[in-house]
């Protein structure tokens, strides 16, 4: 069991014109293996910075990240990443995109083939194996991105608004797929999103971050993700508590945005 520990992480950097930005301040959090956590917050609250630190693309100025016993110092295949659109390799077929991680490890062709075939089956793209990725729709491309990440058997999956550019219908289908994959694979998943509904649906835990400096503002433990597994997500949304939580979080973020705007006007 490797837990993901965020231990008192702060991040501060100088601006070229003088002055400094406190992007994150004293963020601490522990995720047990297999937990699904969503992160919400107004723009500028440091959620993408936090994700980049978790992925190992950025180094925190204070504190540390640990996955199990290992300290995070750089990117590694243990922590897979799913980006918003445009991170697929358009010069490769769907098959080669999904097989990218295993190829980099030098896995044998036969074994790699099995993994890729299985995963494309799971995300429902078996017929599109030999297609170029730019021939697929946006939703299909994000399925490929999910499969590509899973092919590497990461312990943690970091998702940076993976469904942000999709239309509402496709998005709902993809939310179901994410829940299904989370439950079946038992991976730790951290999902950054702008959508309160998505954060409620795809988070056993939900943290709301606040800006200036970026910090954890509120934390929730929610039942909706478990309810949603294998069910129609529209049913979950009709739940009484779901509506209440949504209103609560929306007004919280609304207030924070107002504060930022007020600060900008002064």
């Amino acid at each position, binding site marked *: 069991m490797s837990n993901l520990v965020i231990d008192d992480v702060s991040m501060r950097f100088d601006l070229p014109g003088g002055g400094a930005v406190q992007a994150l301040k004293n963020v601490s959090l522990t995720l047990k293996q297999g937990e699904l956590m969503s992160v919400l917050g107004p723009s500028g609250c440091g959620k993408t910075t936090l994700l980049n630190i978790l*992925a*190992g*693309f950025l180094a925190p100025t204070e504190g540390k990240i640990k996955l199990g016993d290992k300290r995070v110092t*750089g*990117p*590694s*295949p243990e*922590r*897979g*990443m799913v*980006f*918003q659109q*445009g*991170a*697929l*390799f*358009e*010069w490769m077929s769907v098959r080669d995109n999904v097989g*990218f*991680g295993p190829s*980099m*490890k030098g896995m044998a062709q036969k074994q790699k083939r099995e993994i890729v075939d299985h995963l494309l089956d799971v995300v429902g793209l078996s017929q599109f194996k030999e297609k*170029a990725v*730019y021939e697929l729709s946006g939703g299909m491309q994000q399925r490929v991105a999910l499969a*590509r*990440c899973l092919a*590497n058997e990461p312990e943690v999956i*970091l998702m940076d608004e993976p469904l942000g550019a999709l239309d509402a219908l496709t998005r709902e289908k993809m939310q179901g797929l994410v829940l299904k994959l989370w439950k079946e694979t038992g991976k730790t998943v951290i999902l950054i999103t702008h959508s309160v509904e998505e954060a409620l649906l795809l988070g056993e835990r939900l943290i709301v971050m606040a800006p200036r400096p970026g910090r954890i503002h509120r934390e929730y433990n929610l039942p909706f993700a478990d309810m949603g597994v294998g069910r129609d997500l529209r049913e979950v949304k009709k739940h009484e508590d779901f509506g209440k939580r949504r209103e609560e979080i929306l007004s919280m973020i609304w207030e924070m945005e107002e504060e930022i705007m007020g600060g900008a006007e002064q």
Partner: protein
Amino acid sequence: MTPFLIADLWGELLAVLTTLFFALPYIAGYIAIILLTLLIWTGVKKVLRPVHDYTSLKTVTFGDESAVVSNSVASVVSVVLIFVFWAVFTGSSLLPSFLHAPGAFTGTGTFTYTVTTPDGRSDDAEVTVLVYPRDEEADAPDVDPGDGFAKNDSIAIAEYRSDLLRVDQNDEIGRDEDAVITAINGQEVAPGDTVRVDFGTVSLSGRGTPNISPSTGMQMEPIWLPSPEGVWSRLTEIATSGYRNSTLWEHLGYSLFRVIVGFTLGALVGIPLGYAMGLSDWFRGWFDPIVEFMRPVPPLALIPLVIIWAGIGEVGKIILLFLAALWIMAIGARSGVSGVKISKVHAAYSLGASKFQILRHVIIPNSLPEIFTAARVAMGVCWGTVVAAELVAAEKGAGMMIMVASKFQSTDIVIMGIILIGIIGFGIDMLMRAAERFLVPWKGKG
């Protein structure tokens, strides 16, 4: 100095504008013909094949880029018109002769001049002018001297030429006795004046000698512009028997060889250089001043230096083309690397790729479209540069061919060379585009 400079430049500008002004009617005529064909074609198209596709239903086409596609009929008309104009003004046998622009006068024409002596006597005499085709020889025709003290004259002038005729040489009272010409065809003249006659113009020189200029018509003399079939026959002649000790294929082959070797060397050095500049700030800082300075220097400006350093042989030309391609390829590769989306690189790292694997599987394929664009530009520049370098000094090559031909006023070879150079340049670009479609189908799809 400066006021003189400005006055000079102003004078030059006026000269340019005047030339343009005189060209305006011809340009307007050309545009009118194009518009006329457009009108005719629109009418014909409506009758022949009425269109009911999606574009035909658009009410807004002006400003809608997707509604504008190159009209192939207009392209055909454009090319055909060029050849038609060329044929019209060269009297080409490709067109029936009634379509030719009026040609130069040939045949016999006459005019009379009146000589007046200081004591007031005057007499008329007739001049017979024989204008003979330029590829023949002719002598002045025999004429009856006639009566009076002024005697009839005759002269033979080649087509497109003019000549002074000392009409008084056979006259009883000539210029030496201060007899002067006072009228031509009954029209009074003074030295410097010009009179229209049936077959052209006659003007009196400052010393009173008639200068006879038979009409040159509106056709171009072959020395200015040979007819299309003249160029074609010169092409077949050179293709079979060569020019200046080399066959046509040797000339073109040498030019192509230089371009391909120079471009390949430039790409081999430029692409890694561009990658280094895109991947390391130290390399970027090191080469930025050099690349940014050398890029705007036209390769043609380097020709004198390259000739001084490396002579006029193959080495000098290949160095020149290497330099022409190098900076373009380096900048193309650099922007190809800079253009890689950071999320692709991040994705590759978090999928476990090493630096080398990222270069091999992400950065290089991602930069290929930019490199192909740069290669197309570089090939175009190299082709232009090799021709220019051969114009300056070479023993073989397409540029050398037209340079030597121009010294001998073989305009047909010059035009043939220009057309071949254009066709090859176009062919190179087409090949590069085909290679691009085949090798980087993901271009613009990222």
